């Protein structure tokens, strides 16, 4: 399904691109620029607008929408020169003929309804992760997107768009890590994971991540990125899902757990155990992502990665008294070597560059409705295991993704 398996160096991409002559865009407008409407102007929506502003030859944000007035005010303040059409109701934004593509960055429980409206309005869609609030919605959305082959739908698992993560996928596929059996992921913080609330009645709207009615908690908001990467890189999904956790530190009325640990069992070319954990009560590990094979370990941050070959591989080099090399691989103090020579940019920058290409060329994005649904199923199965205190299994009806 994946259209590409190879890293493209995005750092020096020439901006040149030609609009698809089939006429995705019928109206007269600035050549080659995709006009964006952003639905949901919270931290993520505003952050995406900042990234889009860095790509003026590709995107122009023409419309914004949020149900909270102060969010609109904040967004305007951050973009003083922009002339946005402003909406409180997303349906108004979707009626705007100047909008070619829509970014949805609203609480998780609203992803599906708004995504359906966007697709029925004939617009391209960049849908924040996790793709949908539950599994039935994920399967429904797959069906709907299949019926709209001319519209591009990209799901916001942005980290894997970085050249680093493409390189890691390539390293896995080329067998550099050997037989991979263990994945360790964490996304920890030492803090309550709350946003400031200007007035108490807005608590649930602003801190929606705390409440099950709106959010899948740490699993959906954080660990879904790593779950998604594993699914994509290995072209796999877990067969069994185990989980435990609780509200262990912040007994502040929240419903979603502040401490979670999930264990996935994958079977296939690489039969693996995936460990995904997040806590709000310790920040030492922060973001941790390790992939462990018989030949070596990859350790990743969002913007840099190291490769640690297993000691026995270095053993043949131990038979000599010194090594000279054109590679001049620099092993760090822990015996690792950088995967890419430099840190990458934020994943969102790469993700939107690719979204542009998909829209202009009419191609399937790498983070698409199928991979998005697969990840959503994993997230919601994990949450079912977590809150239902029972193991879950991948079901045959999920195989459409």
């Amino acid at each position, binding site marked *: 399904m994946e259209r590409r398996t190879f890293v493209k*160096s995005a*750092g*020096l991409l*020439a901006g040149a691109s030609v609009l698809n002559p089939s006429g995705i865009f019928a109206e007269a407008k600035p050549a080659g620029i995709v006009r964006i409407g952003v639905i949901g102007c919270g931290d993520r929506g505003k952050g995406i607008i900042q990234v889009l502003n860095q790509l003026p030859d590709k995107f122009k944000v023409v419309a914004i929408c949020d149900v909270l007035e102060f969010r609109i005010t904040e967004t305007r303040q951050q973009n003083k020169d922009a002339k946005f059409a402003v909406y409180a109701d997303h349906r108004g934004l979707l009626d705007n003929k100047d909008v070619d593509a829509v970014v949805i960055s609203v609480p998780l429980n609203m992803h599906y309804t708004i995504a359906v409206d966007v697709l029925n309005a004939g617009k391209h869609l960049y849908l924040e992760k996790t793709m949908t609030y539950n599994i039935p919605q994920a399967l429904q959305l797959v069906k709907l997107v299949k019926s709209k082959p001319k519209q591009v739908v990209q799901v916001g698992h942005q980290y894997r768009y970085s050249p680093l993560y493409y390189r890691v996928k390539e*390293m896995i596929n*080329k067998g*550099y890590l050997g037989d991979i059996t263990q994945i360790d992921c964490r996304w920890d913080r030492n803090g309550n994971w709350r946003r400031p609330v200007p007035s108490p009645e807005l608590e649930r709207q602003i801190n929606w991540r705390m409440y099950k009615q709106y959010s899948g908690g740490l699993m959906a908001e954080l660990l879904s990125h790593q779950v998604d990467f594993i699914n994509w890189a290995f072209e796999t999904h877990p067969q069994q899902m185990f989980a435990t956790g609780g509200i262990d530190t912040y007994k502040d009325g929240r419903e979603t757990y502040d401490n979670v640990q999930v264990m996935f069992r994958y079977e296939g070319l690489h039969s693996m155990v995936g460990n995904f954990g997040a806590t709000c009560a310790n920040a030492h590990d922060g973001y941790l992502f390790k992939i462990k094979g018989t030949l*070596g370990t990859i350790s990743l941050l969002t913007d840099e990665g190291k*490769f640690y*070959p297993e000691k026995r*591989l*270095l053993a*043949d*080099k131990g*038979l*000599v*008294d*010194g*090594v*000279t*090399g*054109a*590679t*001049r*691989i*620099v*092993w*760090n*103090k822990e015996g690792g*070597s950088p*995967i890419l*020579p*430099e840190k990458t940019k934020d994943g969102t920058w790469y993700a939107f560059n690719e979204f542009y290409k998909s829209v202009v060329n009419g191609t399937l994005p790498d983070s698409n409705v199928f991979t998005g649904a697969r990840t959503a199923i994993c997230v919601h199965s994990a949450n079912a295991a977590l809150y239902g205190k029972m193991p879950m299994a991948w079901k045959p009806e999920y195989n459409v993704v």
Partner: protein
Amino acid sequence: MHPGDLKRFEINGYAQGTTYKVTYYAADSLVTQSQTDSLLAAIDSSVSLYRPASLILKFNHSEKGISVDHHFAVLVKKALEINRETGGLVDITVKPLVDAWGFGANKTTAFPDSAKVKAILKHVGGNKIRLKGEFLYKSDPQVQIDLNGIAQGYTADLLAGLLDKNGIQNYVAEIGGELRIKGHKPDGEPFRIGIEAIDDNDIHPSPLQMVIAPGNAAVTTSGNYRKHLQANGRQISHIIDPKTGYPSQTDVISVTVVAKDGITADGFDNGFVTMGMRQTLDFIAKRGNLAAYIIYKKPNGSIADTATSNFKAIEVK
């Protein structure tokens, strides 16, 4: 002393943006890490382009030049010699070009056009600098130098010098893949040096390409592919040809050079990448006192290797 009395000592450290490792055999620990670290700090503060207050940055920012220290003078003198010997293919004044192509301390997003390259070339050349006593002059303020291509080999020499001074007879001193070797192991076996293999990728640990026993010598390697940038899907070399102003485009993938000291071996190796395989073999045959092993790309794209006959003589089969 009975050979059995010798113990193996190892110092591992981090300097010049890379790792270093000193292995020696002696009755007692005659050299310690604090000594090697302070030696390496001294050379860094002289010629590191990444050290904000280094002498080399002071020179590069100066109008007419500056007084330099001993290390700096030794490196410049040797670099100018090699510049003459290679007909200008090795040139420390190449720095403005290295920067323009994005291989300097600051990265660029666009490559220079031909007009820009031409303009920069006016400030590049061995005749643009002159060492008189301890003063290094530059012919115009835009002249800048980069000693990265030669300093590591010299650093290996300095480590060797420290070991010599402390009466150590048997050692391998390595920094960033550049080595100085002296003596042998306690059982009389020579020190063996592995040459890293070339793979289509540069991170996969693969078996050593070759093992050599060079005796008392220096070994350095210059590679044309670990550090590269990509432009329109094409990789460009980090080794800039100081005559054309453009990244080297020869058949050479890597050159391993053996010489009596590191400053010589390291001083030549980048130039051999620019020279190309055939010309390098001819150059060494004529010059003598150097041995080389070259991995290169054939016109059909396949990878092959070759060596000078004196290099073949030190190969461990």
